[in-house]
């Protein structure tokens, strides 16, 4: 199978300058003023503490600022060990304003919430020490600056609160990305993604990529399912937990985090397993797990005994997770919206039409509208496509309206011909 490597759009389309950062204009100005104040000597607060909910551009702002002001950005984040001694080693960097080659420097300590009790022991204290003697701007980032652990640290920092940008701002950003990617996005499609993101720009961009990548046009129907879900845990996180899960319990727990129902989650897994499990044995195992899961769905339906749901969940989550034995993780593979559901939502209007015709058949044929639309309608289609006379007779007998005739005939011209025969 061909491996396709994708770049995450959150990285590819990251703002390069402050002007491109989404929202928080006044907040950013406050931050810029503080950086500028360093040119006149060391200010009273040697550190800025940026805080606010995830995905709203705190880190991006610092990176863009460093770029705009041509400063060297020295960064530590949660992936690095931040014990007291590790931070002290890092402290040296903060001890001089200019770097070796004459440029200015910013020291960034990102994801400060991630400082944990044991592994990063003394980290907060050491950070405070660095700030006290810093010779260059130090920037701290956390979701919650009011964590009691930071109470002393806060005294030495200029607190800057980042707020969720309004949906309109997020939407502008999404549109910019679409333009660059050559995607024509419907106004209400990007609007819905923006609204549902609740100001989390990063997840909005992730959603956009999952829904729009590889397309020429993004319609409202493509994204409409988004309105069904909550933003607490995105479906992508849930899928990652299942498809890349290492333990049965972990994969199973994903179900509780998902904000879609079991059938919808099944569709998501069923759609995405093949692209993520490229080894033929892994794929066969995973699909077999889904097949057994589906058998349990059938048993639940037959017996109406919903307690079987636990086995359905076992196979569709843990079963899929344990299937992965040979496939190596490679690149970033986007999760795709279930194709079958897309087909269904696209044909919503079509189903309404079919049922409408079903009701017409029901009035004449002693059969339910539901069954008529499934069992008799296909025959009508064949007749309407092949025999205008017979079609006209049936149209009259069933009292079909012109739209129904056109739907069955498959084209405007043909339906015109049929209707002509009626008069």
């Amino acid at each position, binding site marked *: 199978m061909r491996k396709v490597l994708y770049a995450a759009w959150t990285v590819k389309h990251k703002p390069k300058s402050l002007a491109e950062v989404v929202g928080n204009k006044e907040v950013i100005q406050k931050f810029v003023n503080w950086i500028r104040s360093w040119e006149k000597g060391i200010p009273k607060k040697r550190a800025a503490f940026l805080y606010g909910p995830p995905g709203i551009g705190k880190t991006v702002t610092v990176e863009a600022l460093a770029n705009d002001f041509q400063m060297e950005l020295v960064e530590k984040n949660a992936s690095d060990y931040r014990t007291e001694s590790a931070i002290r080693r890092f402290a040296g960097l903060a001890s001089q304003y200019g770097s070796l080659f004459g440029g200015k420097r910013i020291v960034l300590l990102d994801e400060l919430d991630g400082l944990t009790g044991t592994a990063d022991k003394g980290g907060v204290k050491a950070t405070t020490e660095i700030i006290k003697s810093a010779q260059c701007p130090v920037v701290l980032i956390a979701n919650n600056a009011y964590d009691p652990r930071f109470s002393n640290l806060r005294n030495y920092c200029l607190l800057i609160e980042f707020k969720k940008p309004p949906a309109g701002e997020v939407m502008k950003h999404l549109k910019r990305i679409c333009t660059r990617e050559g995607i024509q996005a419907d106004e209400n499609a990007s609007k819905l993604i923006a609204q549902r993101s609740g100001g989390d720009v990063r997840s909005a961009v992730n959603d956009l990529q999952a829904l729009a990548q590889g397309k020429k046009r993004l319609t409202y129907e493509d994204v409409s399912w988004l309105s069904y879900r909550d933003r607490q845990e995105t479906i992508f996180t849930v899928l990652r937990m299942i498809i890349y899960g290492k333990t049965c319990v972990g994969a199973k727990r994903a179900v509780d985090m998902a904000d879609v129902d079991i059938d919808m989650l099944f569709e998501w897994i069923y759609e995405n397993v093949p692209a993520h499990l490229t080894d033929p044995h892994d794929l066969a195992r995973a699909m077999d797990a889904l097949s057994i899961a589906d058998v349990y*769905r059938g048993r639940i339906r037959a017996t109406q005994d919903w307690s079987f749901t636990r086995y359905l969940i076992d196979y569709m989550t843990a079963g899929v997770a344990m299937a992965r034995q040979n496939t190596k993780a490679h690149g970033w593979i986007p999760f795709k919206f279930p194709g079958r559901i897309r087909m269904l939502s696209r044909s919503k209007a079509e189903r309404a039409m079919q049922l409408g015709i079903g009701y017409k058949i029901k009035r004449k044929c*002693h*059969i339910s509208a539901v069954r008529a639309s499934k069992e008799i309608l296909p025959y009508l289609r064949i007749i309407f496509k092949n025999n205008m006379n017979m079609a006209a007779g049936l149209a009259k007998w069933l009292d079909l309206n012109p739209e129904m005739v056109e739907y069955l005939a498959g084209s405007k011209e043909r339906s015109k011909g049929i209707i002509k025969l009626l008069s």
Partner: protein
Amino acid sequence: MSFGMWAEKYRPKTLDGMVNQKEIVERLKSFVKSRNVPHCIFAGPPGTGKTTAALCLARDLYGDAYREHIMELNASDERGINVVRETVKTFARVRSIGEISFKIMILDEADNMTSDAQQALRRTMERYTETCRFILIANYSGKIIEPIQSRCAPFRFTYLPRGEHDRYLRQIAEKEKVKLLDEGLDAVFEVCSGDLRRAINTLQAAASLDKPVDAKVVYSITGRANPADVQKMIEIAMNGNFLEARKQLRDMIQKYGVAGSDIIRQIHTEIFRADMPEQWKIKLADIVGEIDYRLVEGADEEVQLSALLARLVEAGYELRKAN
């Protein structure tokens, strides 16, 4: 101009006109004679004359104005408990005017009623027996709750025997001036397996093509799996492209309405024709059999069949490795 659906046009109007289900028809005639009808369950596969029998019974009983004395409800469209509480009850409790003191409620596709609705129905049946008799029509009587079953006279409808099926279709073909070839008739029977409504619809759709009805015409309009498509899908899977194979499968099921059981039968045939080591064929046959079994129990044909495709991808990979 041929008018309407033939399945309706040629639906028998009276019990005497019913060609099949002889024993059932005789019993129903005795109800007409005694001017009394018990609650009934008509159970059996589709297209075997259940609804027709109920309508014929009503017409024989009440005469041409039978529509004033009966109500037809379709549980697939109106399956909730409220329908029983309101529509059914309202109809059932009002006495019929005329020689016969009771009305008839025909509940079609009753196996689609929710169990709540069935529980509610049970009381209504008991309470208003004087004024209303129920005929419940279902494919599976097992889906009707036990207490209702025990209150009803059961009638089991079976598929039409081949001879009656053929006679009936030939008659219609003759009246509609359709040239129905023997092989066409064979094909209709094979595809519809005795479901007369489907058979007549198939005949009418085939006739709309305005040419003699042969086997090819019949297969082309009934959405049977085309062997060439299945063969191609197997090839794509064995070459390792699972996603493309699944797409083909999806098209077959969703666009062309091919039944999963039909596809799996074709796959089974194709495997023994395929160019691969003999011992692999039997290995794959075992996998096909397992999926075929799961298809019966499972909920979703595409999921089951794509699990089979994944196995074919795996087999193709192993075969290439061995070479």
